[in-house]
């Protein structure tokens, strides 16, 4: 479907497990998606859906002691990242081509280092072009201005900045090497609404200016509507619905879980008496249900859902893994 030269990142059939002493946690179970250059993909789901694990697998920063990538391909600019040796990953890719923005700006910054130095350090680590100290300084100033911080503030320590400013610094560190892909893991969850709006507006502007592709991990369907081109909804380690924002927000051919997520949100524009939450809880990731992972909570569950894992039903750019759609026999129409 996609023309190869335009594709930046292609994740195929990714499986990640965490091995604890007694049990195996199936965190990511066969995730596949594509990201084109300059595009923003929203990865949406609740706690335990496998969003962050997917992101960490792409960055190859999963904890070695417990996590294992069992299967899959992560193709980035034509190379399979899972085959790239660690030292190449560290010097050529992580932080340089793919950068990550974490949820909590406080713990992502070194409290005893001036913010300007922290940005410069990221740059020096990947200093391919042998930039002179003056050029590095210039670059730091430019990046700070880009994220809306006066360059004089580079001599401040993190505790002298407010939460929103700190997140801007974290974003500056991610941007300073001019990556082609940014993974933002709930970048505004720790911030207040008005500050969130500021930071989101800034990210949006930067993305347009720099043409960076982004994977935006969030649980907030409002942020997705505002920021993303494409959306993947995750549940229990799988993508259960993926498509353009128009596909997902149109409400047509909606996965019952996606419908449940929308039903859980109070509507600001209409008066609703009751919310329509999804009953029940996330399944235990060490003991996932057979068939469709959502079947125990699904209001439209059928017999087939309990036994057969649904495949994607495709309609243009919109793919849904649900037995309600397609040929209805548990088989997708794309073969």
């Amino acid at each position, binding site marked *: 479907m996609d023309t190869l030269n335009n594709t930046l990142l292609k994740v195929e059939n990714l499986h990640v497990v965490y091995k604890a002493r007694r049990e195996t946690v199936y965190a990511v179970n066969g995730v596949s998606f594509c990201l084109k250059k300059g595009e923003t993909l929203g990865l949406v789901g609740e706690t335990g859906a496998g969003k962050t694990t997917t992101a960490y697998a792409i960055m190859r920063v999963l904890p070695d002691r417990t996590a294992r990538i069992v299967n899959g391909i992560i193709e980035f600019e034509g190379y399979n990242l899972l085959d790239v040796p660690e030292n190449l990953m560290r010097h050529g890719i992580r932080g340089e081509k793919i950068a990550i923005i974490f949820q909590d700006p406080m713990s992502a910054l070194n409290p005893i280092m001036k913010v300007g130095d922290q940005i410069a350090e990221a740059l020096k680590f990947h200093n391919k072009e042998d930039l002179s100290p003056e050029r590095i300084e210039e670059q730091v100033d430019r990046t700070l201005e880009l994220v809306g911080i006066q360059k004089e503030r580079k001599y401040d320590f993190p505790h002298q900045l407010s939460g929103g400013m700190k997140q801007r610094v974290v974003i500056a560190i991610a941007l300073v090497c001019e990556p082609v892909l940014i993974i933002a893991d709930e970048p505004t969850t720790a911030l207040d609404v008005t500050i969130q709006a500021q930071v989101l507006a800034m990210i949006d502007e930067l993305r347009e200016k720099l043409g960076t592709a982004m994977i935006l991990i969030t649980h907030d369907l409002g942020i997705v509507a505002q920021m993303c081109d494409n959306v993947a909804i995750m549940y229990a380690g799988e993508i259960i619905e993926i498509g353009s924002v128009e596909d997902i927000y149109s409400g047509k051919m909606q996965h019952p879980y996606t419908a449940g997520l929308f039903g859980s949100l109070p509507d600001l524009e209409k008066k609703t008496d009751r919310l329509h*939450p999804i009953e029940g809880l996330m399944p235990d990731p060490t003991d996932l249900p057979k068939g469709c992972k959502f079947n125990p909570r699904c209001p439209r569950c059928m017999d087939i859902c309990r036994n057969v894992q649904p495949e994607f039903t495709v309609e243009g750019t919109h793919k849904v893994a649900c037995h309600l759609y397609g040929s209805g026999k548990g088989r997708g129409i794309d073969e």
Partner: protein
Amino acid sequence: MEAVRGGALMSERKEPILVVNNLKKYFRTKKGLLHAVDDVSFTIDEGRTLGVVGESGCGKSTLGKTIMRLTEPTGGEVFLQGEDIVSMNEGRLRKARLKMQMIFQDPYSSIDPRMSLAQIISDPLKVNRLCSSKNEIDERVDRMMRIVGLAPRLRESYPHELDGGRRQRIGIARALVLDPKFIICDEPVSALDVSIQAQIINILMDLKEEKGLTYIFITHDLSVVKHISDEIAVMYLGQCVEKAPSEELFLNPVHPYTKALLAAIPVPNLSKRHARPTVIKGEVGNPIDPVPGCRFAPRCDYATQKCTGRNPELREVAKGHFVACVLYNGEM
């Protein structure tokens, strides 16, 4: 103040269950006196819900704790069904708290990890010696668990075995077991996932219907507060800047801060996708040794000379709609 009282009279007349007059809570800090709650007044009629919204540091949680007298107020009065909470001694306060309970924000730190579920829910009954027999306690615990939707088999479970949603149900059951009239909900759903959040909100709303409860619902989430509240108070740096019936506030926000707050919510549909929201500049400050004047003025696009020098008072701009902003002073 008089005007605030007047606001309570608007709907069908009911006895106010809670009257808060000029409540103040200041904290001494190294940098100076922090005005966490500064001169807040409101009344709540029985069976109604007052939503309190604001961003972090606006004093909304301190307001809840001060009303419960978990922290001692610096000044002001709190009347619960006509009795002044602030001047009560320990013993009478304990009695008064039987009618007034609190649900806390963090479902992890707000319940004792060493107690089983049944112990947690029965503890309020035990410390107040409300039940004569063990059977009676067990019965009430079972009833509570049923009401909040906890399976009976969980009776002997411990909190760490349960997820956030179930823990928050325990918190609700614990608050309800004393059969209070009035509950302060301090961000009860902000630590939960959306689907679980909706479950908890539904429980709280059902309980309100069934038992005729009165809530103060403290939150930073405007869509949640609109859904659950009859009336909403918007707080900024310790002060109430706008107060109105829920519908009215969303249809017709007046205070520049409320407007900015509403504009900042990301809406989960594509209608506003390409319209850049109006973003307010600056960051929330600190109410340490504040000078008189509107505390929002440094971030406000409409700020003028008139905003400094003296605190804007809450004025009624429409029926039941109060705002503290010089732009609307004396217009009515």
